[in-house]
Structure formats: structure tokens, C-alpha cells
């Protein structure tokens, strides 16, 4: 500015900024997600890589399409990283060898219906990735539950780049050969057949289903549970998220699981199995903590996280689906406005009801 000329537009204080930015936040979340994703790529090979790219691309495409319809410039919005992250989270919740159209439909659905229909970033009531996942699960239950056992990239039978592409584009030639149930699916199926958990999960079985190194069937985000948790803790350390939602959600799953298992081990899985299975860890650290769709006070976040955990346990244990994180998160998303309304911070000099403190 010319210090002698009068400036045209007054700018309100503050005239300094802490340096936080939307895309910075998104980039940090992606960095926290990267180790688990790369490890998942190694475990499930090229088909998983292709599916990830297709899902992310579809999510970006959906976002760009809607922005064009709204006659807004797409590039600056795409660069904020939120659509990429939505596609990424969705890809982590899909079966790794799922066909391309599952990722494509899911990615488009996530950003178009899950996000842009509400008005774009910050306006959506529900977590876009989970909206898409639930839509896919209800529409294509078979494809969404066709899990494969890990076949690491370096192992002999692993499909190469082109074979992997073929698997993603036209489906595995003999999926039956590699398919396998996830722990939660297996437990539920066996229980419904009348086989109790003590038999169905005896000995080697449990080791097969509950390997901490990730050598177990499941989605990308499920198998690398420890890396997901490490990424989540890194986000807490960086101050991107707080510990409130993850801790409350995991407690909401683990506490009833521990009680149930203590009461009847033949009927109820233990807490470790619950926490390390399905999307519990991914959900607790990366999905339920979505800023837009979670409450804005710490107390509200504890209630929200606990609700997500309890509902997950209830759906897994007594519901029709073996996994319930997506449903639980969506149900709690719907309650978020109510939680925000009821759990406001106390204003300085006032009581919780907003009246001035007595002198």
C-alpha cells in the first residue's frame, strides 16, 4: 500500500493468522492415512491399488461435475483435498478385490449425493464416505462382502499389474479360490447356523482371523488396524483431531463387548476381536472424527463417540449385518445437530442456562 493514500476497503481485525488451512488439514489426514494404505496395497496387491485409484477418481469427478453444474470454478475446490479424502476413505472400506464399478459408483455417490447435494464442503449432514458405503452395501450386498485373504505383492501367486487390472475390471476368474469371510461375517454366519463361537473360532481359526500383522481377510482399512491406529494417534499428536471421539467410540465398543464375552463367551466375541475387526479403528480415528458431521464441543464429542461405539456393537451383535460402523456413524451424524443444540459451552460469567452468575 501507499502509506499516504487512503485504502478503499477496511479490513476487520485480527491482522494475524495462526497459519491453519483447510488443505493443510486434509493433507495431514492423508499423511496419517498413507502408511496403512500402502501396507494394504502390499497385502492385497495390484487389484487394491487399481480400485483405490478408480474410487478416488470417481469421487473427484463427481465433485467437479457438480461444481460445473453450479457454474463454479472446480479446480480451487478440488485442491482443498476434501473430495480426494472422501474417495480415499471409501476405498479403504471396500473389499480390496471389488470390481471397478463398485468403486466408481461409490465414489460418485459419495461426492454427488453425500456432499454436493447438501451444498458442498461443510454443508453435508452425513459423512459422505459412509453414505456411499451404506448405499453400496444395500444395493450390492454380494459384491460388498466378497472378501479375499491377503496375497502380498511379493508372494508367488500375487497378480501382476495387468492381471490386477483384469481382476478389477472384469472380476477375478475364480474368486472362490481366494475368497474368505471376515471375522465378523464368519462369526455371525456360524452363530446363525447354531455353531457357537468356542467351536467356530477355536485354535488356528482365531489366529487366521485376528492377525495383528494384517494377514487376515478384510478391507484395506481393516487389516492394517495397528497402522490405522498409529495414524490416528499421529493426528491427535498433530492436533488435527482430539482423543475424545476415538476414545469414546472404542470404549463404546469394547466395554459392552467385554461384558458380553464375560457373561457368555460362546455367544459374544471378546473386546479385542471387536476393536480390531471391521471398520472399528478406521471409523474411530478417521470416519467419526470428520469435522463436518461431528459435534463441536468436547463433551458433545464424547457423547457422539460413545453413541457410535454402542450402536456399532448393537448392530454387530444383534443386527442383520455383521458390521455396523457405517450405520452407527450415520445414525449419530443425524443426532449431531441435536447434540450441538443441547451441549453448548458455558459462556463466561453465565450459568449453563445463559443467565448471569449471581454476584
Amino acid at each position, binding site marked *: 500500500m501507499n502509506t499516504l493514500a487512503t485504502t478503499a476497503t477496511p479490513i476487520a481485525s485480527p491482522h494475524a493468522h495462526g497459519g491453519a488451512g483447510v488443505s493443510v488439514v486434509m493433507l495431514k489426514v492423508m499423511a496419517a492415512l498413507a502408511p496403512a494404505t500402502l501396507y494394504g496395497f502390499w497385502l492385497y496387491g495390484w487389484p487394491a491399488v487399481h480400485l483405490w485409484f478408480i474410487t478416488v477418481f470417481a469421487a473427484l469427478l463427481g465433485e467437479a461435475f457438480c461444481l460445473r453444474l453450479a457454474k463454479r470454478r472446480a479446480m480451487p475446490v478440488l485442491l482443498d483435498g476434501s473430495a480426494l479424502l472422501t474417495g480415499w476413505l471409501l476405498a479403504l472400506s471396500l473389499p480390496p478385490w471389488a470390481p471397478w464399478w463398485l468403486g466408481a459408483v461409490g465414489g460418485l455417490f459419495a461426492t454427488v449425493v453425500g456432499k454436493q447435494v447438501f451444498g458442498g464442503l461443510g454443508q453435508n449432514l452425513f459423512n459422505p464416505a459412509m453414505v456411499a458405503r451404506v448405499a453400496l452395501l444395500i444395493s450390492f450386498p454380494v459384491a460388498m462382502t466378497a472378501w479375499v485373504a491377503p496375497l502380498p505383492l511379493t508372494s508367488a501367486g500375487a497378480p501382476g499389474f495387468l492381471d490386477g487390472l483384469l481382476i478389477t475390471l472384469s472380476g477375478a476368474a475364480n474368486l472362490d479360490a481366494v475368497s474368505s469371510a471376515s471375522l465378523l461375517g464368519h462369526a455371525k454366519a456360524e452363530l446363525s447356523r447354531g455353531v457357537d463361537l468356542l467351536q467356530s473360532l477355536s485354535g488356528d481359526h482365531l489366529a487366521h482371523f485376528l492377525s495383528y500383522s494384517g494377514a487376515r481377510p478384510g478391507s484395506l482399512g481393516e487389516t492394517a488396524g495397528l497402522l490405522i491406529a498409529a495414524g490416528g494417534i499421529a493426528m491427535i499428536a498433530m492436533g488435527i483431531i482430539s482423543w475424545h471421539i476415538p476414545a469414546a467410540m472404542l470404549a463404546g465398543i469394547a466395554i459392552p463387548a467385554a461384558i458380553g464375552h464375560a457373561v457368555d463367551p460362546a455367544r459374544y466375541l471378546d473386546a479385542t476381536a471387536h476393536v480390531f475387526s471391521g471398520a472399528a479403528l478406521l471409523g474411530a480415528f478417521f470416519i467419526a472424527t470428520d469435522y463436518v458431521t461431528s459435534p463441536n*464441543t468436547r463433551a458433545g464429542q464424547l457423547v457422539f463417540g460413545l453413541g457410535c461405539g454402542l450402536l456399532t456393537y448393537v448392530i454387530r451383535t444383534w443386527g442383520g449385518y455383521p458390521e455396523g460402523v457405517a450405520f452407527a456413524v450415520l445414525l449419530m451424524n443425524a443426532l449431531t445437530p441435536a447434540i450441538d443444540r443441547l451441549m453448548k*459451552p458455558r459462556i463466561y460469567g453465565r450459568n449453563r442456562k445463559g443467565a448471569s452468575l449471581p*454476584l
Partner: protein
Amino acid sequence: MGILDRIFGNHWGVHPDDRKRPAADLPLRRLPMPAHLYVPLQQHIGAPARPVVLVGQRVLKGQLIAEAQGATSAAIHAPSSGTVSAVGEITAPHASGLPVPGITIACDGEDRWLEAADIPADPFALEPAEISRRIAAAGVVGMGGATFPSALKLTLGKKSGISTLIINGGECEPYLSCDDRVMRDFAVDVVDGIRLMLHASGATTALVGIEDNKPEAIAAMKQAAASFPEIRVCPVPARYPMGSEKHLFSALTGKEVPADARTTDLGVLVHNVGTAAAVHDAIRNGRPLVERIVTLNGGAWRAPGNVVVPVGMLVSDLIAVAELKEQPARLIMGGPMMGTLLPSAIVPVVKGSSGVLALTAAEAADGDAQPCIRCSSCVRACPVGLLPLEMSARIRNEDYAGAVDLGLKDCIACGCCAYVCPSRIPLVQYFGHAKGELAARDRTKLRNDATKRLVAARAERLERETKEKAEAAARRKAERAKQKAAEAAAAAAGAQADSETTA
């Protein structure tokens, strides 16, 4: 902080990069007197002062040039010796760039003080009211930026029974170090000023709150106050906005000020360290408040530091002697968190100017606002416990009543929310806009109510008048009828008499 507060995250404020050094560590400088001084007549909360000098009149430094007008006002003195060259208007150091009444003095360069008369040998022998009178006569106002007339505050405090004086040495705004410098260089004067204010207000103890990022100031003040047990120097954590009156009060006493009360209702009066130094100068040296320490800081200054500036010196004159090394992206008066963007450099330094910041584009951190991602950083940063994201959403939709329900009127405009916002939403601008709209609505409502009252009164008057007229007409009619009847009776009586006489 209790364990529950930790779990629920009830902490407040932000920890901005303070950027106070190296400017804070450099020795205080005096600048050459400029050719002209432009002294606004309103440098305080309340009514503008009334000029008592004429154009062409010779004045000495410290001579009264405008007297306080009304209960809430402050006297203005000549900041240097010279001739009054104009009594007119001056551009205010405010973003609006609107003119305010002011007096221009052409300096003679001698900077000669008015001979101070009547300096008390022992001010503690004076009546408290006399101390306050002298502080008022010296035109001392709150130096922290609020510029409330100090004597009035002391008098009001005396009336409401003050037990404790809190001296605000928090200086929580980044970049600023003028209070730091006052405490380091004039600790003895500050302590003396505090003792005088204790005497004037009737308080028994003084707590000096200083943020712990100023260890030199804490040490200097502790040493100066060592022989006065009634003055306690209390380091407080460096956290913005620690210098907010209510927050410093809470940090020092552990209590909370009720929303519709003031600290004085709890027996506590808050004054700034700079004010204490000004009080010392006024009572001990008979010198009114005509100059102050101003922090020059920000990346665009060639030599940042603290300078003694006469009130009325133009920022452009400051720039002429202290020099910029590049064109600043923003010129700010005050701190970066709550300071005012200057419309241009042709505005004067006033009694409440703590700093003149020349920020580079990188420091000013301009950026386009993006959509709110509801990260709730603002909720955690807000020192008052408000929901800035919800309030701004209401205000965007012109739902001002909704924003008020969420606590808009409790907002202190500290800027913490906008400072942490990753979407760079100008939240303070929203709140300022809404407060302005509400004030305008209140004014309109007052005017409408007054109009309504007048209309109603007129209607009533008209009605009364019509009624009175009707009554008067009826009365006249009745009188006429009576008169007629009387006349008729008289005529009848006359006729009878006539007939009788003829009979």
C-alpha cells in the same frame, strides 16, 4: 485447570507467536519533534474536550489546550511548545478515516515545558479525592487502549468500595512491547503510581499481573515493589487474551465476573501499567499525559523498537524518521489481534496508541475465505465460551436475533476465532457487522417509539381539543338558550306588566 476441564477441553484463548523480540529488548528511543502536531480532542471514551486556546496563541508543553466537558471526558494538553495553528478537524486513527475535532500545533522545536506548579511534598497526605482531581487535571486515561478517564474510574471505585487493585501488565497482544518497556525502564515510577492509585481508590492490595513471557519486566517490577508488601507481582501464563480485564481478573483471583456485572462490583479495579506510570508523572512531577511509549514493529519497519512519541505526531512523520524498508501490506494502530487498520499514514498517534505496526504481506496473512468445515477450532479458542461458527452462520442469513441468543453480546471481539480459523473466515467482521446492525436497529426502534409517542400525544391532544371545543360550544349554546329564555321571560314579564298597565 481441573481434571473435568481437561476432559471437556474447557481451556480458552490462543497462543499466538508473540513476535515481541527483538523490538522489546532494544533501548527506548526518542524521536526528533515533528514540525506539526495534530491533537484530536477526543482521545478517550466520553465527550470530546472543549478547546480553550485560540489560533495564533503561544502554548508551552503541558499547557491545557482543551478542557474536559461533562462527567465522562478528559483534558487535553499541548504535547510540545509552539503556536496553535488551527482549531478544526483531523482524520481519526480509525479504519473509517472520518474527521474528528482537533487542534493543530506548529512546534517551535524548543519543546519547553510549562513550569509545574504546586507539586505536593507528600501526596499520601492529600485527600484521595484530591489525587483523583489531579489525575483528571492531567488528562490521564487508560493506556491499555480502552482510554477510559482514569480519575473517574478511581472515583467510581472509591464509591463502590474497592479492596483490590489489579494492575494489567499482561500485554498479551503479539508484537507489542510498550508496557514491557515501561515496566523494565520505569518500574520504580510504576510502583509509585500504583501506590498513589491505591491511596486514591481506597484499595488495600495491588496485584500486578504480568505474562511469563516477560521475565525481565517481572524481575524489574519485583525488585521495585520489594519494599511494599501491599503490591504483589504475579506472573500469569502467556496466553491471548490474558490482558482482557475479566480474564486477567479470573487468572489472578480464580473467580469469575458475572455477565451483567463489572469487576468493581466484586471490589476489584483494573488499571494498566502505563496508566500507573502516567499517574506517577501527573502527581510527582506535575506533568500531564502528553507523550507515550509506542511500539514500532512488523517486518516493514527498518528499525523496530519502542519510541517515545508525543500525542498528535502523525504516523507519516513517524515513518519519515523511523523509516520503512518496504511498503507495508497493512498499517495497524494497536496490536495485530484487535488493532485498527489505518486508512492512511496521515493520522495522529493518540493517548491510547500502544503500537504502530507495519506488516508485510506474509505477516498480514491475507487469504480468501473458504467454506466453514465445522472443525470447531473457534469454539475451543473462544475465551468467552461462544460458538463463533454458529453465530456467523446466523449472521450470514441476517438472523441477528439468533446470533444474540447464542451470545453475540458477550463477544469481546478478541479475534481468537478468526486467528485459528483454517477457512480464514473473517468472523470478527461478521460479529462487528451484526453488532452495528443491532445498534442501528435499536436506534431506529427508539426513534420509532418516540415518533409513536408523539403521534399518540398529538392524537390525544386533538381529541381533547375537539372535546373541549364541543363542550365550549355546548356551554355557549346552553348559555345562549338560558339567555334567550331569560329574555323571553323578561319579555313575557314586560308584556304582562304592559297588559297590567293597560288593563
